[in-house]
């Protein structure tokens, strides 16, 4: 176990370092740099102005020196300074991370709970109306692009029905505190969470249903039924327990997107999360911010994978640690 953990940590370190270096060069290949963009957005700026900015950002140094400066900074826990915002990158990221984690975390729980629930319901009622309705809906949400669902949801539930606010994370200027504020945020969360979660709900539904049906035909289920175990209990203890593995695999993939997977949802719903920070940084060639977000994303993916590997043993004890 110890050597396993150590090995994984070493691997993770190499992977993350690789991600940083690869991204660094990829970003450098994009045309334009932050100094040019700043001057461009100002609508003027002579070359001397641009050169001065470049020198200030350290962009006048050779690329390898820039890379070394960045990597050695990261190793010291310093993610650098945003060229554009003139704020430490870590502050920017920590500022925006909670909003994203709240959104993606809630969507994760939402899709897992609803997906498994619908999957079980469909499998239990295989072939009848409920099953058809569930599988049809799952197919629709699986196939429809996210942004379209988002826009239609805003149109229907916010504009026509007026049930939920169309965007923002909370009521701006209301000055709510404590529980009132939590309630307000929850109200604002409904649309983005459902929008973001529906795709995975559809996947979990289909996976759970298919996997359950497969397990239901196995001998030990027949035995249980012959023993006279109540149907409800067979489903819960025997079938679902054995059918959950594919869902678990997919859930660990969704969990890997906790940080970087919500750009579109954040944009449509004006959610002040990290996805938008990343997108803005990309358009503005704010390299340190972009690299910082990539780094955090990579760390989360690696960490989630590690946890998932450990959890596999509990979900299915037949799987030993490699």
């Amino acid at each position: 176990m110890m050597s396993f953990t150590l090995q994984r940590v070493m691997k993770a370190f190499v992977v993350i370092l690789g991600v940083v270096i690869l991204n660094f060069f990829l970003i450098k290949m994009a045309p334009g740099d932050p100094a040019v963009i700043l001057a461009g957005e100002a609508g003027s700026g002579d070359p001397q102005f641009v050169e001065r900015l470049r020198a200030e950002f350290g962009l006048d140094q050779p690329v390898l020196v820039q890379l070394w400066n960045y990597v050695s900074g990261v190793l010291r826990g310093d993610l650098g300074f945003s060229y554009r915002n003139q704020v430490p990158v870590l502050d920017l990221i920590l500022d925006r991370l909670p909003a994203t984690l709240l959104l993606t975390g809630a969507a994760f729980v939402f899709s897992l709970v609803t997906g498994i629930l619908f999957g079980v319901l469909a499998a239990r009622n295989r072939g009848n109306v409920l099953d058809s309705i569930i599988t049809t809906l799952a197919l629709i949400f699986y196939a429809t692009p996210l942004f379209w669902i988002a826009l239609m949801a805003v149109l229907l539930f916010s504009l026509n029905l007026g049930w939920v606010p169309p965007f923002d994370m909370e009521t701006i200027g209301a000055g709510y505190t404590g529980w009132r504020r939590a309630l307000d945020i929850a109200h604002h969360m409904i649309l983005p969470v459902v929008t973001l979660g529906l795709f995975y709900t559809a996947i979990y539904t289909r996976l759970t249903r298919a996997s359950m049906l497969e397990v239901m035909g196995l001998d030990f289920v027949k035995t249980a039924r012959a023993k006279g175990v109540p149907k409800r209990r067979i489903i819960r203890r025997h079938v679902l327990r054995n059918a959950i593995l594919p869902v678990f695999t997919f859930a660990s993939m969704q969990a890997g997107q906790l940080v970087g997977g919500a750009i579109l949802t954040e944009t449509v719903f004006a959610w002040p999360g990290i996805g938008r920070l990343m997108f803005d940084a990309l358009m503005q060639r704010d390299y340190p911010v972009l690299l910082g977000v990539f780094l955090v994303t990579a760390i989360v993916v690696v960490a989630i994978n590690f946890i998932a590997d450990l959890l596999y043993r509990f979900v299915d004890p037949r799987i030993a640690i490699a």
Partner: protein
Amino acid sequence: MTRWAALALAGAALLGGAAAAQSAPEGEPTPGGTLNMIVQPEPPMLITGLNTQGPTLYVGGQIYEGLLTYGADLAPLPQLAESWEAAEDGLTYTFHLQEGVNWHDGQPFTADDVVFAAEEFLVETHPRWRLIHEAYVEDVVAQDDTTVVFQMKKPFSAFLYGFDMSSFPIMPAHIYQGTDYRTNPANSTPVGTGPFKFDEWQRGSYIHLVRNEDYWKEGRPYIDDLYFRVIPDAASRAIAFEQGTVDLLRGGDVEGFTIRGLSEMPGVETTTAGWEYFSPQMFLQPNLRQEVFQNADIRKAIYHALDRDFIVNAIFFGQGTPSTGPFAASMLFHDPNVTQYPFDMDAAKELVANSGVDLSQHPIRLLGLPYGATWDRMTEYVKQQLEELGFVVSIQPVDAGGWLQAMGNFDFDLAFSFLYQYGHPAQGVSRIYYSDNQVRGTHAGNNGGYENPEVDALFRKAADALTEDEARAAYSQVQQILADEVPVLWMFDMLNTTIYRDKIHNLIRTGIGLNEPMDDVWIAQ
């Protein structure tokens, strides 16, 4: 003969009249209320001295002030300078500052702050001031606490047109002097002299400004709170206005095709005023280093081949008026009586036929502006027209960074571009044509490679002119020459529509529009 000094004095004298005219709107101003707006995209910072992007100026304009501002007719109006004089020889400018002005942290605003801005801060950080300072300004002196004198190396007829809050924002010397301006920790809590003070910035969500109780104009501002909200999706921004979450949309906040629908809602007003100082003009820039574009007849043929009324009306939903020449119609010294190139495909084809050039031998790349669907449609339309003319055209796909890089490296054949004209041709127009302004690394110079010593001489003459008539004569002549040679195809003067609810009064009062401090704006309660 009108002297610059007379113009300046007239501007100062106008103060009384303008103030009187402003205090008689419909109904009595009612204090209080909150104004919700959108800032798009989110600015990187609010320090207008360090960043002159549109969104920074929009928010920062309520926090910081300049010495002057400009009317819709571009006449200089007082702001932090209550009056000013220019010597007849054009070598001395004296500004008399408002008394009793304090920074938001309570420190007094004095002439030293102006000197600091002019001689230190802006020289290092501002994209335009450094050039003016280097070429024209000899010395800046604080004579006493409220008097600043600019000594010039030589006369500059546009000098008084560069003192608004975007061209010459005054920064607090007591906070910045002797520090590294860009990394000064005070940058996260801007301190200005304006009618609103910084309160809070939730990045990605909103910026909140509150009323400056200590503002130097008695009883102003009327409004208590300003919220600038960050809503990244254009459709969501339109919804925000429809639902009343925000009461004001600035030009560019929503797509052209939603403007009409929003403006027809009850209780909603629109205006295109308030952009006169910036006068953005959109143009097609041929790269004159290419053989095919060195032929003036080919340039004229392309100009004739484009139906600019169609572009403005069908593609931009009326958000513009076709340009009549190199100066936007709202600019000083604009001369409409120059050669025109109306849409005429037959004339265009004839020009090409007579030139003897086989256009199919000169495949060209079209560099479009990466600002979304509307701009893409225009690029596609131009491609179609050029192909009808006989060109083989491909579109260079770029994002903002790619566009700037291609422009800055002269790596384009035919590029779309637009520039602000900044109140005076010497600030925003001549830079496109000066032969010696072909410098790599910027998109806002003479990127096309136009060279005409006569044009250079005329622009210089106008810039150095001591009288308005002298400047006007030179500018008229240069407009004639440019219109005859078409080094650039002036497409249209861009219009920006401000949409707002009619409970907001006195919203647009000057030629810098929404960047003007909202001290006189009030909301009917």
